[in-house]
């Protein structure tokens, strides 16, 4: 099995004593679409910073396609493309200049860099802006520019730190399509996001990090399968308050809205069958909350309780 990324016992203690990473282990397979989730301050950006050598690690090992960053840093860097959370390009340079310079840092000559820049900017619908100063771009365009820049040296692994933060829904969906297409082409994608729906829709594998510890690392389907109960909301035409469903917990929110808990193994057909028998017409259905969101909250709370418990024991 070829791993795009292998992290072992990675620790980071910042000056001032903040323990951002407490010995995390992580493996990302080649070709994976991997989500690294966690609340603010959990250690996601620190981990990404260490992988891309923007942050010095305190301990541990990071390998990119088998190349240890302590021994073969420059080789490891050639595999990685980074789209950081904050805009970090020269605001006064043109888009073409930014892309061509970036390619040059990876040894791509200007002629080839220009060809690649044209391809990336056209794909990301920025070609018309190629000679504009980067500061003139909208927020969404700046994010796309950073994706184009990260792809200039044809990386094998693309790391995106909150790529769709502050991006409108239409653009977010087009970026999802673009990332799916890159993944189909064989590029391993690792992303951190606050939009859990994004992780659920895009990623095959997932790690949840909290307080510097990996609290879950599994594939998305297996993770979602651990949910025992899912809550759906039904908008009904009439008689909603009178609905009685055997074997289901039903809460009547208002005259036209029902909230129903569906346990693992129960079928939606049973719900609709019983409602039809009672003459209740269903107009629409939606999930009460994102399923992953529920799991995330549960896991993070579990992690927090565990670490609090451990600290209490340590204090004694």
């Amino acid at each position: 099995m070829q791993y795009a990324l292998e992290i072992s016992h990675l620790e980071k203690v910042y000056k001032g004593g903040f323990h951002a990473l407490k010995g995390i282990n992580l493996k990302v397979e080649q070709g994976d679409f991997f989500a690294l989730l966690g609340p603010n301050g959990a250690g996601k950006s620190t981990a990404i910073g260490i992988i891309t050598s923007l942050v010095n690690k305190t301990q541990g090992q990071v390998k990119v396609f088998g190349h240890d960053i302590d021994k073969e840093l420059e080789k490891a860097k050639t595999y990685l493309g980074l789209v950081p959370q904050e805009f970090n390009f020269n605001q006064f340079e043109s888009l073409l200049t930014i892309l061509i310079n970036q390619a040059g840092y990876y040894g791509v000559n200007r002629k080839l860099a220009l060809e690649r820049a044209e391809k990336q900017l056209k794909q990301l619908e920025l070609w018309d802006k190629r000679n504009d100063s980067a500061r003139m771009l909208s927020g969404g365009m700046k994010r796309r520019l950073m994706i184009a820049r990260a792809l200039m040296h044809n990386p094998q692994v693309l790391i995106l730190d909150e790529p769709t933060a502050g991006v409108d829904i239409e653009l977010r969906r087009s970026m999802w399509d673009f990332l799916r297409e890159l993944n189909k082409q064989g590029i391993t994608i690792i992303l951190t996001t606050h939009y859990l729906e994004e992780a659920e829709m895009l990623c095959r594998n997932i790690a949840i990090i909290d307080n510097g510890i990996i609290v879950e690392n599994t594939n998305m389907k297996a993770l979602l399968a651990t949910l025992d109960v899912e809550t759906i909301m039904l908008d009904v035409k009439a008689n909603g308050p009178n609905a009685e469903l055997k074997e289901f917990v039903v809460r009547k929110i208002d005259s036209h809205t029902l909230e129903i808990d569906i346990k693992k193994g129960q079928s939606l057909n049973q719900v609709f069958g019983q409602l039809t028998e009672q003459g209740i017409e269903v107009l629409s259905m939606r999930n009460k909350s994102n399923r992953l969101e529920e799991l995330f909250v549960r896991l993070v709370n579990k992690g927090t309780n565990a670490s609090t418990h451990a600290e209490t024991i340590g204090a004694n």
Partner: protein
Amino acid sequence: MQSAVNRTALKSILHKEVHRFMRIWVQTLVPPAITISLYFIIFGTLIGSRIGDMGGIDYMSFIVPGLIMMSVITNSYSNVASSFFSAKWQRNVEEMLVAPVPNWVIVAGYVGGGMIRGMLVGLIVTVVSLLFVDLQIHNIWVIIATVCLTSAVFALGGLINAIFANSFDDISIIPTFILTPLTYLGGVFYSISLLPEFWQGVSQINPIVYMVNAFRYGFLGISDVNLTAAFLVLLTFVVVLYSIAMTLISKGIGLRS
């Protein structure tokens, strides 16, 4: 293979650096020409005509090498200090840090950019000086060696300043409080042989005295200091400052958390 990658990376940094100061040429190339022209008019033509000779050379011709050197020093330093600190401040320095660019290429690229600006401004000032004096050249190789080493020393100094700087104020403190006094006291406008013995001794610890005098020797064939000592001082500064810059960047001081 890696050397070809490094060469392209170095060319990219140099291209970026030259493009930066050429894009804002009104701020980077024109002011030194105006400032030095004023020096020529005031110290050379107006006051200089009353001073007469300095070391057997007419005063205007005497100050030309020092004034060229002064503009080379200032511009080499400020170019790198300003460019590297801006890259830190806007965080686009990360573009290089995530790429497989060896640290020596980053140092060489920025220092090379500073040297090119310093020498380009030096050339402009030399051309301006031709309006005021007939320049003679005593030894072109001494001129070239001195200007290259001096611009390298101050470009490295600017880089180290920018690595430590946390605000734009921090990149103006050293030029204002250290560089400018050392330059004015570095024998640009006078021969240190005119100073009392004690101050002559003090001047010996000012590195700019060696740079200005070596450069003046290249033009006029006169110097207050030994030429070999001057080149030793220059080479020592290049080696020491390069080592410091490399160590700082390797450790990620001011760049990596």
